[in-house]
């Protein structure tokens, strides 16, 4: 499918195209009209110039003839000295408008007669001819006749002819332009419009339409070429569309097709109340197949699975591979939730038939998340996400089974999504609160430190524990921000503790794994401590084993930096993860906190007592301070003390509480201590959020 941008660009081009075709015509006119005009004018000028010279020659010849005929007429009166007759003959020729003046000279060169018709202000030519008189006896030259004549008429004629030819030329040019315009519209504009219309229709619905041109001229050929190109394009588009919407390995529709399918689901349904079953299938341990048999076999395995799914479903059902080992099967109409679940079970059964890979029998296993929704449900597009919730549930709770999305799962999903969306507001409105839980000397019962614990006071959901929202914080990339939030609060708390007369109490902060890779943490910690005027030695940084595993080198470096600042490093939740003894040796640790899982069964569980005892002995040997978490009963404290655990933490002493409450308790404790020195531990009041 084209993107939105792709769609808009051609439209803009189409809108621009008519003006472009006009400009082509204009360009043609601009290219031809001046040439046409020039040729017309040059031709007119050429014709006129030749006509002009011809007229000049004719006029010259005519004047010569006039002079000669007059000479003949004048010869006798001139010879016979009848000068009055000479004059009258000469006067006759003055009717000729072109003649400006004429004169007759006798054989002595004297002008016998001279007539001037008009001042010779214009170009004047002159013709002179001898006047020969002859009779039976003599033949003599009696004199000369000279005629001066003007070319003015020729000039005027030529001028008006030139003007006429120019006007005719302009009219001819105009007619040509009109003809050009009309023929361009017929022979160019129409075929172009037909092709443009085909292109426009093709743009509108993505199909390649042929241009309807029947003529056999160049545009006909162009149209045929265009139509054959359209044909080719249609095939290519179809192939491209198929490739874009199908998985090349299995030939099944892909994730892109899923979106389209979802969009059409409700339309295809017979009624809004029809139930749609959406099965999200994830193969269990596909990675193991790949690792064991290689990727080619993995691919083959996937093809087998896809074939089985295809065989298992009905003609109305729809199977897709979203990628990797994820498949989706949609049954557009099921009778009820139970039928949907049975369908999912059928699929699971089909998948679970053994497959031979490299002569070895493999039994595929898969988990299915099933979501059933009404066709009229406005959130039909969320079906993959809903089914994914169910799938996640199945994967985590019961792999190899079908998990049906129920209200509870959906509620969790919604809450989770709400919280994730609310994180930025949580920071902005300082909804995150840092509570503190005391770390107590098991011998003296005195508070020696506090652990900073984050809480989210959500305006709708109330106080939310870190177990729920920290994964969301991590997913949204806000770990660093939260850590600095906590660090700042802890430094403030240290300051207030000092004011309250307890500068000896240290505060522990939990560092998420990602922070150990952050080289700037040490510098920021140092800067924050300086800002609050507290020593970094009063800070304790708690890390988990998991964070050490993922990035050993950078974690080690960060821890060394922090330690050089004076902060102490504690390994949290020891015993539940890898519990690597190598870690205890490799990293610069000061303290190890035993997970409360080992404490809760004490003193009843001898095994736990043994484990804690070993850990305590190991810590003692390595010079590490040991902390017991989750001490809820006095006998647990007693057992810890007996096993040599010096420090403890738990509800027996204090629940996590806001700093103000803790400060108040400390103040009261101090006052009590001043009155009676009591050894018995007090129960911290529960603070309900």
């Amino acid at each position, binding site marked *: 499918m084209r993107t939105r941008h792709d769609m808009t660009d051609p439209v803009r081009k189409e809108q621009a195209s008519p003006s472009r075709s006009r400009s082509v015509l204009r360009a043609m006119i601009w290219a031809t009209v001046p040439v046409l005009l020039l040729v017309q004018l040059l031709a007119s000028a050429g014709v006129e110039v030749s006509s002009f010279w011809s007229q000049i020659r004719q006029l010259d010849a005519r004047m010569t003839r006039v002079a000669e005929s007059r000479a003949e007429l004048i010869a006798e009166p001139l*010879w*016979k*000295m*009848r*000068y*009055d007759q000479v004059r009258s003959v000469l006067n006759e020729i003055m009717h000729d408008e072109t003649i400006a003046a004429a004169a007759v000279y*006798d*054989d*002595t060169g*004297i002008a016998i007669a001279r007539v001037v018709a008009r001042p010779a202000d214009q170009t004047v030519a002159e013709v002179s001819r001898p006047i020969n008189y002859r009779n039976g006896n003599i033949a003599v030259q009696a004199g000369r006749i000279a005629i001066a004549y003007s070319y003015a008429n020729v000039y005027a004629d030529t001028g008006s002819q030139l003007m006429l030819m120019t006007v005719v030329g302009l009219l001819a040019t105009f007619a040509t332009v009109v003809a050009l315009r009309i023929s361009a519209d017929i022979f160019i504009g129409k075929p172009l419009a037909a092709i443009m219309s085909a292109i426009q229709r093709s743009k509108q619905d993505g199909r390649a339409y042929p241009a309807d041109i029947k003529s056999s001229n160049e545009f006909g050929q162009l149209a045929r070429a265009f139509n054959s190109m359209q044909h080719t394009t249609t095939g290519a588009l179809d192939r491209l569309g198929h490739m874009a919407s199908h998985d090349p390995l299995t030939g099944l529709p892909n994730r892109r097709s899923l979106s389209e399918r979802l969009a059409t689901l409700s339309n295809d349904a017979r009624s809004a109340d029809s139930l749609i079953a959406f099965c999200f299938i994830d193969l269990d341990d596909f990675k193991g197949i790949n690792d064991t048999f290689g990727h080619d076999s993995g691919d083959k395995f996937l093809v087998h699975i896809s074939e089985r799914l295809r065989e298992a479903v009905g003609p109305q059902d729809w199977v897709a591979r979203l990628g990797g080992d994820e498949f989706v099967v949609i049954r557009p109409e099921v009778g009820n939730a139970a039928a949907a679940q049975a369908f999912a079970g059928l699929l699971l059964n089909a998948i679970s038939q053994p497959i031979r890979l490299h002569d070895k029998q493999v039994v595929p296993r898969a988990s299915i998340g099933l979501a059933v929704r009404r066709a009229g449900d406005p959130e039909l597009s969320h079906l993959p996400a809903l089914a994914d919730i169910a799938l996640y549930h199945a994967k985590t709770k019961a792999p190899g089974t079908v998990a049906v999305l129920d209200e509870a799962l959906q509620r969790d999903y919604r809450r989770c999504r709400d919280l994730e969306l609310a994180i930025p507001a949580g920071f902005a409105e300082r909804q995150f609160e840092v509570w503190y839980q005391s770390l107590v000397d098991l011998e003296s019962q005195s508070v020696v430190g506090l652990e900073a614990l984050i809480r989210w006071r959500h305006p709708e959901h109330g106080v939310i524990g870190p177990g729920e929202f920290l994964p969301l914080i991590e997913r949204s990339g806000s770990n660093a921000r939260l850590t600095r939030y906590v660090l700042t609060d802890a430094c403030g708390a240290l300051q207030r503790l000092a004011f309250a007369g307890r500068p000896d109490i240290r505060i522990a902060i939990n560092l998420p794994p990602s922070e150990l890779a952050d080289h700037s943490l040490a510098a920021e910690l140092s800067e924050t401590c300086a800002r609050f005027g507290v020593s970094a030695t009063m800070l304790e940084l708690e890390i988990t084993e998991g964070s050490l595993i993922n990035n050993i080198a950078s974690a080690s470096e960060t821890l060394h930096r922090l330690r050089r600042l004076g902060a102490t490093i504690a390994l949290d939740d020891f015993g539940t993860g890898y519990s690597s003894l190598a870690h205890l040796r490799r990293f610069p640790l000061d303290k190890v906190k035993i997970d409360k899982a080992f404490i809760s069964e004490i003193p009843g569980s001898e095994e736990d007592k043994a484990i804690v005892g070993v850990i305590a002995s190991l810590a003692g040997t390595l010079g590490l301070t040991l902390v017991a978490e989750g001490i809820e009963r006095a006998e647990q404290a007693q057992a810890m003390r007996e096993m040599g655990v010096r420090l403890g933490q738990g509800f027996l002493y204090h629940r996590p509480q806001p700093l103000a409450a803790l400060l108040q308790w400390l103040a009261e404790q101090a006052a009590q201590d001043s009155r009676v020195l009591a050894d018995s531990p007090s129960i911290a009041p529960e603070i309900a959020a």
Partner: protein
Amino acid sequence: MKVILRILLTASIVFGVLTPIGCVVAADARRLNIVFVNPGKTGEVFWDMVAQSMQAAGRRLDANVEVLTSERNYRTMQELGLGVVARTDKPDFLILSNEESAAVPILQAAEAAGVKTLLLSNTLIGDDAARLGAPRQILKTWLGDITADLRNAGVRMADALIQAARAEKWQSPDGKIHILGIGGDEITPASIARNNGLQLAVAAAPDVVVDRMLFANWTQSEAEQVTANYLSWATRKGIRPAGIWAGNDPMALGAIKAASAAGLAPGRDIQVVGLNWSEDALRAVGADRLLMTDGGHFLLGGWSIVLLRDYADGCDFAAASPHVEVQAAAITRANLAAVGDLIKTRAFDRIDFTRFRAKAGRCGRYDFSIDELISSLAPVQGTAD
């Protein structure tokens, strides 16, 4: 009575015709009726004098001469002539002048009517002459013609000019004597004849050149104009004009006027000759401004009556030739005194025309010379001044 007279007349004619040559003309010959269609205008000197001499001769030779004037209109002339021919009382003779060849229809009508005709001064020319042949051949009643030898007159005039110029040594720088010819026109026989005379005379004189032969329509003013033009041209050409030959007296007088206007003294610086014996010309001759005026051919009128009288009396001029050519004559200062008065007063009755009749046996032989004329003149009657 008339019948008898007719019979008598016819008999006399027949008799006369048949009378052997040498018969004495009957002294008691009957009176002749002669009509003359005058082509000229009333007041036109030459033709007036022709008619007057004709009438004077009629009085001497017992002929009644009726003169009809056509006022220089050939249509009028034809109407007059045809009218005469159509008369019931036809004349004995009809005298015509073939000016502009207008007389031919009249001749033919007269032939049809049996009226005898004589052409005076202008005879048939060109096609007419070829077509109608000699007198009395095709047109039996066309008796003949009497003309003046004007070519010879032209020669005489030119010779007079040449002699005078040679005597005065009026040669131009090129050594030649340059003269100007002024003709009346180029088409009428009378004009062509005298112009030919000029050409002949000059052809015989290698030291003479006719610069131009100009034509002035017989009129003084036009002659004056062309002469002025010529003199101006000659000056520009460096020619010394020696003489001007004019085809008639008015043109000669125009030339004189132009020469005077050009600062030349006619008679002293340049010589001019004319033709016609006109009064003004004679005065100019007397004043030494005109070298000579040739002519006297107005007497053709009188001579024609002499011919017809003789013919009527049986002495046919055709015995010599039906074409009677009369020599013209020049009047110079030398003979001016003798004839000048005759012309001035037009006292043609002084001429004894009977003296000029053919002698017996010599029909057609006449002496119409100026000397004979002078000797024929009766002394002036009355007081002579």
